[in-house]
């Protein structure tokens, strides 16, 4: 492939939205209230919309006849490059909100920078997504505050979720070879530069929500290299079920 770095770079971005969208979609019909259910589905729909823009672009770059669905659903486990954070399960609503919040703060900062990309398609996608993600961040932050401040039980659950998910945050700022190449060309965002601000604002926001910023410095990584947690396999089994069981058909 001529533009292999660009292709891989796009997949790295899009896989986060794909896997997180899938996780949010699992909740549809099972949320704590109807209103919350509708809100979470909106986030999922936004994310899948983003995924389609990215993969349609990636399919064009690949130029080998693969479609957005082939890219989304017909790769092997090791070829998904989403961060580990995005694939963590909906253990309870605090985990759903915690995962969303820790990702949204990063995602918003990332997209804000991606708008400046020299690749006009990417900057246009970022331009559209940044508004959606601003709302996601507002939504998840408000809920972190509600759960952090609400009752003793909710504070404890929210804190537990943040503590457990914390170990997956550092990976957000790791760079792959494709990332570095794209940064050098002015196409990609240098995520290492987002790190300091991220931890600063996350810990301020957590404090506002009466939650403690975890002190642990032990972090997990591997998603960007396709080495995932055990959760991803099951998620992919669902995501890919139709395409795998009935290959080469149109739906």
């Amino acid at each position: 492939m001529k533009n292999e770095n660009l292709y891989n770079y796009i997949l790295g971005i899009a896989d986060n939205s794909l896997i997180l969208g899938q996780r949010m979609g699992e909740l549809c019909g099972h949320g704590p209230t109807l209103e919350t259910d509708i809100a979470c589905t909106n986030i999922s729909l936004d994310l899948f919309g983003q995924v389609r823009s990215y993969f349609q672009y990636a399919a064009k770059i690949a130029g080998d006849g693969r479609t957005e669905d082939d890219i989304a659903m017909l790769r092997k486990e090791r070829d998904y490059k989403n961060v580990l954070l995005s694939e963590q399960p909906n253990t309870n609503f605090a985990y759903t909100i915690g995962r969303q919040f820790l990702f949204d703060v990063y995602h918003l900062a990332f997209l804000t920078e991606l708008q400046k990309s020299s690749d006009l398609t990417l900057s246009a996608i970022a331009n559209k997504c940044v508004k959606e993600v601003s709302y996601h961040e507002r939504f998840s932050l408000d809920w972190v505050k509600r759960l952090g401040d609400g009752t003793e039980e909710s504070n404890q659950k929210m804190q537990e979720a943040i503590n457990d998910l914390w170990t997956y945050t550092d990976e957000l700022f790791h760079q792959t070879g494709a990332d570095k190449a794209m940064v050098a060309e002015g196409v990609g965002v240098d995520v290492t530069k987002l790190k300091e601000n991220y931890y600063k604002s996350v810990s301020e926001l957590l404090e506002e929500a009466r939650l403690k910023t975890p002190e642990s410095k032990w972090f997990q990584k591997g998603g960007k290299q396709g080495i995932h947690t055990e959760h991803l396999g099951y998620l992919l089994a669902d995501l890919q079920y139709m395409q795998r069981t009935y290959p080469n058909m149109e739906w």
Partner: protein
Amino acid sequence: MSTKNWPLWEIFVRSKNGLEHRHCGSLHAADSDMALENARDVYTRRNEGVSIWVVESKHITASNPENNGELFEPAQDKVYRHPTFYDLPDEVKHM
């Protein structure tokens, strides 16, 4: 059993600038911030709005239909408030 239920809110949406906010329904939310967010997600999914008002339902004071006679019927025969009450010569085309 939950200690307290989320209160009910009435939602008003302005569909575009230049038009008034119109009542479009209600929903439940714990506070006004959440009511706004919920209203955005529930009532503007299809691009129906540019502005939202939320009012907790208990703050609305409504007239009682039993009083409709005294409240609204007296206005029925005040035809002089309408332009058609007044005679004009045919020559006056626009007034």
